[in-house]
Structures are given as C-alpha cells and as structure tokens.
C-alpha cells in the first residue's frame, strides 16, 4: 500500500506544480490547493502508515499499545489543513475581486510589463 501512496504523492506534487505555473489565476489557486494536500499526505506517509490503529487511548488504559499511527504528524497536518483552508479562502476572494477589477483571469493581464507591451 505505502508504495502506491508514495506514487500518489508524487503525482499530486507534479499536478500541483504544473497547475501553479499556468497563466490562469484560477488554475494557480487549484494548484495551491493541491500543493497543500500533497504536502499533508507527504508528512502523513513520512510518519509511517499504520492502518487501522488511531492514536486514541482505549478506556481503562493509560497509554497506547504499539503499533499506533503517529499522533505528532497528525497534529501537524491538522493545523496545516486548517491554515491552508484559511489562506485558500482569502486567495479565492482576492481572485474574484481581481477579476472584477481587471476583467480577466490571465495573470499576465496583471503584469505591468505585458500591459505596457499591449498598449
């Protein structure tokens, strides 16, 4: 399983990078979303995949019996998901406002250099 997930992480990173290098602002945002997901999955896999053993102490016990899924990696990812959600929400609203202002979703339309070239 873990090798397959590793391949998935690679694919997600590649797609994220490709989307981020597009001229469309919307694709840039989509790439950003995927980049966050890939990074989270990367950390998750790096902390080892332990199927079916969540880090929750059973009633009556005082500590976890190994093997258990790494709680530290999960805590990091949980924070990362929430923060990337906040950043994305802001970015999406910003894109909408930018589109309203310049009437284009082409990043180059924002660029003062190419604007001068155009006109």
């Amino acid at each position: 399983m873990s090798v397959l997930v590793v391949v998935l992480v690679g694919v997600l990173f590649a797609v994220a990078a490709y989307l981020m290098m597009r001229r469309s602002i919307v694709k840039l945002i989509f790439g950003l979303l995927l980049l966050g997901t890939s990074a989270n999955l990367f950390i998750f896999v790096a902390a080892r995949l332990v199927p079916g053993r969540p880090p929750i102490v059973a009633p009556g016990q005082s500590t976890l019996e190994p093997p258990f899924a790494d709680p530290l990696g999960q805590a990091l990812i949980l924070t990362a998901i929430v923060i990337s959600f906040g950043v994305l929400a802001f970015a999406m609203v910003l894109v909408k406002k930018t589109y309203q202002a310049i009437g284009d979703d082409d990043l180059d339309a924002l660029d003062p250099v190419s604007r001068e070239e155009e006109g």
Partner: protein
Amino acid sequence: MLGPLWRSGLPDGGMLAVLGVGFLLSVLAPFVVRAAGPKGFAWLAAYPAGVFAWGLAAPSEVTAFPWAAGVEVALRLDGLSRLFVLLVSGLGALILVYASGYFKPRPNLGRFAGAFIGFMASMLGLVLADDAILLFVFWELTSVTSYLLIGFDHESPSARASAQQAFLVTAAGGLAMLAGFVVLHSETGTFRFSEMGFVVPEALMGAPALLLIVAGCATKSAQFPFHFWLPNAMAAPTPVSAFLHSATMVKAGVYLLARLKPTMESVTLWSPLLMGLGAATALVALALLAYHHDAKKLLAYTTMGALGALVFLLGQPDRYALQAFVALVTAHALYKGALFLTAGSLDKATGTRDVFAWSGLGRAMPWTAFGGALAAGSALGLVGTLGFIGKEYALKVGGAPAGWIVTAAFALGAGLVASRVGILPFVGGRREAKAIEVPWAMWLGPVVLGVAGIGLALSVGLWGAGLFDEVGASLRGRPVDWTWKPFFGFDRVFAASLLLAGLGFWLGWRIRPLGSTPPTMGLDRSWHRAVAALPGWAAKATSWLAPVGSVTGAAAGGRLRDGLAGLFSVVTVVVATGLASSGPIRFAVPFVWPGVFEAMLVVLAGATAVAVVFAPRRVSAICMLGIVGTGVALIFLTHGAPDLALTQLLAELLVIVIAVLVFYRLPKFRSLSSGWVRVRDATIALGFGTVMALLLLAVQSSPPQADVAAGLAARSVPEAYGRNVVNTILVDFRALDTLGEATVLVVAAIGVLALMRLRMEDAA
C-alpha cells in the same frame, strides 16, 4: 524589601473589579452612547468617578492569581499606582463630562465611546499591574485604543496616517520593552515588580535591559528622537488629546521608569541615560514650540517638554528631584488637562485653533476664562499652585547647571503656552463677536481642575504626607518622610521661580511664531518617506525571484509563474543532489500487495488529479479536486487518522462551496500558454513530483523515530487527561501553536470580510 509597606491579607478583589467593570463597560459603552446620544458620555463618567472614590479609600495591597504560561495576573496598589489611578480616573470623569458637551450627535460616536472606556481600563490596568508581562499587555492595549481614538476621524487621510504612525512607533517601542523585561528577568529571576529587589551595578545584563526598556518608555512618552508622533496625534478629537496625549498615556513611559527606579537606578547607565534623554527632549520641545500657532500643537510640545523634565528628574538620586517629580506629575496632569479642554472650548466657540486669533473673549466666556486662568497660573508656577511647588523643588536640586537649564526650558515653554491658551485669549480687544460661553459640561472640567491645582497646593501640608509620601516610598523603595508645604520663603530659588514665570508670560505675550513651516528635524519626513517606500522595497524583494525564473529560459520580468518554475527547478535539483550524494537509496519498504479497495482509492485520486489539468471547465475541475480531496481523506481514515479525515472532508467541502460561488462567473478555461511552454512546465512538474516521491521513499526506508510520539502518547492520559492523543497535542502540549493557527484563521476571515465589502472601482 518592599513587603511591609502595604497592609496585606485583606480579601479584597477591588483592583480586579475595577478592571473587569472597565472592560465590560467598554463593550457596553457603544450602546449607551447610541441610545442616549452625546449625553451618554456623562453617564459613562460614573465609572471613572467610582474608580476615583475607590482609589481614595482602598488600602494598598498586592493580589495575584495564576494565569497562563507562568504569567500571573498580579495587581498592586501602592503610592505610585494610587497617584496614577486618581489622575486617570479623576481626569477621565471630567473629560467624559466634557465630551458630552463637545460632541454633536454623529455616526460612530458609540465606537468612540467604547475605545475611550477601553483605553481608560487599559491605562488603569497598566498602572495597577505588578507583573511585567501583564503590564506589557495593557501597554499594547493602550496603543491599540489610542490608534482607534486618534484615527476616529477615519475619512481624513492625515488622521489615519497619524494614527498609524503613533501606533507603529509606540508598539515597536513596546516590543523592545518586552525584550527588556525578559532580559531583566534573567537578572532578577521574577517578572513581579514588587519582588525584583534591585539589579547589582556589576550585573552583565543590566545595561541592555535598561536600554530596551527605556526604548519602550521613550516612544510612549514622546522622548527625543521618538517625539514626532505626538504633535501629529493631535488629529484626535480634543477630549482624546486632553486625556491620552497630555495626562495619561504619554505618562505611561514616565510611570514605568518611576516604577523601575528602585530596581534599576543601581545600573550605572541609569542617571546619564535618563538625564541626557530628558534634557534633550525638554530643549528640543522648547525649540519646536517657537514655530507653531495651533493651540493643540503648542500644548503637545509643552507636554513633550514636561515629559522630558520628568524623565530628567527621575535620572537624579536627589530627594528634591523626586519631590519635584511627584509634584510635577500631579500638577502637569491637572493644568495640561484643563488647558487642553480650554483650547477645545475656544475652538468650539470661535472655530479656530490659532492662538493669535483669540482675543477679548473673557466677557463672553467667563467660566472658561476662569478655569483657563487658574490652570495657566499653575503652569506658570505662580505662588499657591501645585506647579509652583514642583518648580520650586526642581530648582532646589543641587549640583550641575544642567538641572537649571532643563527646568528653565520646561518652565518657559509651559508658561509661554499657558499664557497663550489660558490667559491672553480672554483679555484685550474683542475680535470674534459671535462667540458665546460653552455649555456647563465643557467649562466644568477646566474649572474643577484649575481649582484643584490651587486647593491641593494650599492644603498640601495636610495630605502631602499621606499620598505624596506614599508615592515617594514607591520611588525610593523604602518609607520616606518628606516635608510638603505650599511656600518656602523668599530666597534665591523663589526669585528664580518668579523670574521664570514672568519671562514665560512675557514670551507668550510678545513672541510671534518664527515661521509657518517648522523644521521637523527631518524625523517626521523620514518616517513618511520610509513608510511610502515600503511597497517599493517589497516589489524589489519579489523581483529578485525573476532571475531564478530566467534560469529556466523564460523571459524575465518578475512574473509569478517564472519565479515558481525557478523555485520548483531549484527544489528538484537540490533534493535530487541530496538524495544522490547520500549514497544509493535502499528502498527497503516491504512491498505488500494492496487491497482492492485501497488500490482503487489511490488510482482514483491520482487519475482525477491528472484529469484536473485537462478539465475544460472550472466546475468540472472543482469537482475533480473534490474527488482528490475526498480520496486523501479516505486514506487518512483507513490509516488511523479519523480526526484528519474529518477535518480534511470539512475543509474540502468548504473550499469547493466557496470555489463554486466565487468562480462561477469567471470565463471558461483558455489555452493561454504556447505548446513548448507547456512542455517545459510539464517537464519541471514531473521532475518535481518524481523527486518528492523518491524523497518520501528514502524517508520511509530509514529507521522510524518513534520516541517523540511514544512520549506524547504516554503523557496524554496522566498529564492532559485526554484519550485522543492528537487532540491533547493540539489543545494542551502545543496549545500555543493552535492559538497561532486560530489567529491565522481570524486574520484570513477579517481579510475575506474586508475584501467582500470592498467596492472595486473599475481599474480599467
């Protein structure tokens, strides 16, 4: 030790109640003022009036409650804090009454009232705090509320700029001060002022701590060269100028220096630093005075001069210097508050703040004239006023002529402006025929303050030994027995005092401003230039990414995607080099055939992700992204991370909803890039993805580091009382990180809200 100075053991939550009620009221105040109009301010004055009564009656004490992360809510009422509590609450009450007459009904007045009461509570907290960190919190709260109050007239660009300037200068100083507290802690081992003892002169960190703390005090108390924000802060409505920027907030720095005097005066740098700073401030203030005819600016510069003189006095070990300090802090708050209010009333009555335009108003405005003249008498330092007592002691300080010069500079400036604002507008020929007396709410303050300045001086023998000696005990760190009397006999000092008063009045009467454009000493201008240059610097810093992008063969020009292409390439190369140089990678991951369900999950997520690239429409792309996110959530779920799965699903769902709402109206995807650019980007992206996957494989092949996780798992139940270890990490072991996370979310939410409400002008 300071222990026996107060009667402890009284179960009294008085200080907590004072602060609690204050902050609660700052939330309620907007509703009061919205319901009652400007009259509401007079109702709100009940709070500071009550605090004033409490401050007169409450016993000196220290109370402490544990708070978070080793910081205590430690509050202390002693002589010094009592004096400031009385000044803040007494002036606060009178100025709130004044505000009820000053303001016309206008929008946002409720918000103003909330910030004003919030400031008052923060200021009371600042002087009552016995814990340095707690003091810092209140200190920054006064900066924040001051920002809101200076920028109250938020449609004026200059008010906004002034508010921002005052905030940035004082908040930056506050941060330096916080660092100073930490350094001081390394010497004294405590954040409690009452337990600090004193820093030994040979202490290594004494001077750095002092410099950092003085930086904070100097920005807050407008010491040269950080004074430039204070005159600009006069953009605030007059009640704010009178309260914050003459009597209370600007004294916070002076207060902290006085508070730390017993602890830090043993540091060798103390005297030279404070005396130098104070002297420079007093002299610069006097020089800048000569260029202005706006009443509030003039008053601001005399405030600066007084603050300089106070810091100068604190730098001296002399007993008379301390007596002068105590008397002048009190006298200055009373007369400067009164003069500001008088200036505000004259502004209302005549429509101008030009001191040279006011003349002959005494008949029309008898009460204002009465209050203004009494306050001016105290500022001039005439016999029988508190100002006289302060000046007398300042001149009695033995030794260097520097003291005489600083006292003279301060006294001349104070006298000059006091005459101009408190006396001369009411005499001479009348120019403004329409001016009439302001409502009682507006002359009450100056009259009460003016009378207090004289009544307190004449009766100082009765109460000085009580209140002022208690303040002296705070400054000295041990009980004092000082003599307080209103008059000291006809000696050389008296002659000098009289001469200064006469000269000050004469200057105010005769001198005209030197020019209309004052030399700002370049500081204000440099500040604005630096602020204006910031976006340029940011753009330059970003454009440094462009050369990285141009390595990949793209045309330079600072485009985001070129920078990203460069970034991804660099990461790919660096990671690949790292992997290659660490020897042959042993992919020691045991290959287990995945279950059908898991394999389907991974293939589905991967294939959908690739399909996003080729999606023709945004809605289909968004749906595909949703599938990828859900797939990842399912991987979390099947691998022991139910919390992650839940959060991921929720976040994914919200992102998709927002994405559909936001992107619905945008045009169809177009093919914007040329073919070979796409090939280039695909190559970079594939290389990046491959290297990341290889890195992950290499990580998996190395032995696991399970001890941190095991330690957290072992501590979860006994220490954090939680069975979900992820949860205990988030809300207990790493709770501050989670606080940071929540802060990011709030900031993002504010940003989204601000953007949504922004009406875009058509940029094209």
